């Protein structure tokens, strides 16, 4: 009962929204699709739902083509990033709507709707219309509606992106619990947030510019990103990728001092490469080292992202805690050479640091 996407390709106005996307989606597992805005995530969901057409390729359900099956016969549920409910119906009626359309008897539909609302903790608000609910509550209704249907395919398109930080964390936790009971449903969940994708996904699909860049378990994706693009997408802040060369005992990276060649980089021929420097592997201080200029400071929760200019190269540093630095300050940079990634010049992963070190 799996869903198979076969070479889905879709062009709109000369731009590829989907470019030869092939995937196998298994029931009972949560597939998170990670990618930047415009990577093709939403397009993929819309094609799976039957809302958008493809130029070539097909979607198979249990080996049967869905190409001529219109959305209303696909048994697909969807949760949008905007909190979409029917404004003229109450929360309960909203959840019942798809059940009634599926010819579930009224009493049964009501029972299931109430159950779903209880699951998302909205029993007390079931008579309110969406207009009278907060954003988070509205999204809970939408999720309840999707869950109550027990559809064969459940699609969630960045469902948490429009919520504020705290609510997002909270709902993310709850989602894990809610998804644990999906049983025979194929769940596809898109997000731009690496943490969300890695935390929720049984399998992570990284998309980049309409293509599938890598598919794998969260650990595989994070520890061995197949390409520089994946490496950037699965890290927050994105991994720094800078041209460099292997020279005997050293790794030369533009702007930085010669670094010692760590053990996982042994066995590669000297020559030009792309060097991946994870933001946490960089540290700055006042001691000796290469001087860089701070161009921008971002404080994100308990961490600080510091953007620096290193003789023409832009780098991002992730530091724990709050640091008292400001734009224009000159700081010295140091790198942990054992945490470097190595990519060939065309962006394919050559070497990753040993597990457990990132």
């Amino acid at each position, binding site marked *: 009962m799996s869903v198979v996407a076969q070479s889905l390709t879709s062009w709109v106005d000369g731009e590829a929204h989907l470019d030869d996307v092939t995937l196998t989606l298994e029931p009972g597992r949560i597939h998170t699709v990670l990618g930047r805005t415009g990577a093709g995530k939403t397009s993929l969901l819309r094609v799976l*739902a039957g*809302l958008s057409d493809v130029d070539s390729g097909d979607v198979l359900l249990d080996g049967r083509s869905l190409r001529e099956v219109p*959305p209303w*016969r696909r048994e697909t*549920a969807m949760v949008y990033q905007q909190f*979409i409910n029917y404004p003229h119906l109450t929360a309960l009626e909203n959840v019942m*709507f798809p059940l009634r359309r599926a010819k579930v008897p009224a009493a049964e539909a009501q029972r299931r709707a109430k159950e779903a609302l209880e699951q998302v903790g909205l029993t007390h608000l079931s008579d309110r219309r969406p207009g009278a609910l907060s954003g988070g509550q509205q999204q809970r209704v939408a999720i309840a509606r999707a869950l109550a249907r027990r559809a064969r395919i459940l699609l969630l398109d960045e469902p948490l992106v429009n919520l504020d930080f705290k609510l997002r964390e909270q709902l993310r936790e709850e989602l894990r619990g809610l998804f644990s009971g999906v049983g025979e449903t194929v769940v596809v969940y898109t997000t731009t947030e690496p943490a969300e994708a890695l935390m929720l996904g049984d399998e992570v699909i990284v998309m980049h510019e309409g293509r599938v860049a890598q598919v794998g378990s969260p650990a595989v994706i994070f520890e061995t990103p197949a390409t520089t693009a994946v490496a950037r997408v699965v890290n927050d802040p994105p991994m720094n990728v800078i041209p460099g060369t292997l020279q005997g005992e050293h790794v030369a990276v533009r702007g930085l001092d010669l670094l010692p060649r760590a053990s996982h980089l042994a066995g590669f021929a000297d020559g030009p490469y792309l060097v991946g420097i994870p933001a946490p592997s960089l540290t700055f201080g006042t001691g000796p080292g290469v001087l860089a200029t701070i161009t921008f400071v971002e404080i994100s929760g308990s961490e600080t992202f510091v953007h620096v200019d290193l003789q023409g190269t832009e780098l991002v540093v992730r530091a724990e805690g709050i640091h008292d630095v400001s734009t224009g300050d000159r700081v010295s940079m140091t790198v942990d050479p054992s945490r470097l990634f190595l990519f060939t010049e065309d962006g394919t992963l050559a070497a990753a640091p040993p597990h457990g070190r990132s």
Partner: protein
Amino acid sequence: MSRWPRRAQYLLLIVWAVFTAMPFLWAITTSFKDVNAVQGHVTYVPWLEFEPTLEAWRQIFGGAGGVNLVGPFVNSLIITVCASAIAIVLGALAAYGLSRFRYRIGPAKNKDIVFFFVSQRIMPPVVLVIPFFFLLQMPGLLDTRLGLIIVTVALLLPIAVWVMVDFFDNIPREIDEMAMLEGCTPMQAFLRAIVPNSAPGLTVAAMFCAVFGWNDFFFAFRLTFTQVQTLPQAVVALNSSIPPWWTLSAAALFGIIPLLVLAVLVERYLSKGNLAGAVR
């Protein structure tokens, strides 16, 4: 807010209210006059300056003078309601389609199709009326309500499409997509998910349709002979070589009543602030 904009605001409102009301006040006083109160010099105040008479009002409801506005009123009502209803149904369907799907007819895309609809309003009525005459003559629809309804639909459809396209554009398309995913065909999605949320837009469209339908004189006049008289025709038929200003005034006032109801309805939606994208 400083004070002068506030004052300017009140001044504007008062001046415009007076200006708007003036012709109505004049029509109201005139409707109680007779020929002697009209010729010679200008009079305003009943009893003081002229002897008021109910003659004009009696006349338009079938008094002497061969005028009776009740029949034409009913005709106008039937034609306006039917034509507006058809125009809104066809217009809403087309507007929904144009708002949700990509069309391509030859070189024309959605925007061009909307323009095609709206551009029909550019046609001067004179261009249309003679061809309409022949068009209705063939199936024998001249001088019938059905004939007028068909023609009126053509005049109203552009307005309905224009209002509704913008309105639907402002309803998130995810609502009807979701309805489709939940088992509705596009038609059911439209009827069950969109239409129930379109009351403001439909009301504005209905108002525009009713206004233009109700007030059409040009086509009604030229496509009927003796069997179907609409209200504007019947009022204009009072415009003889000695124009009976009083009857004309009474008739003009009488003709506004049904539309007042719509004005109040539209205002209600305005107050609630949910006309949002209804007219953009």
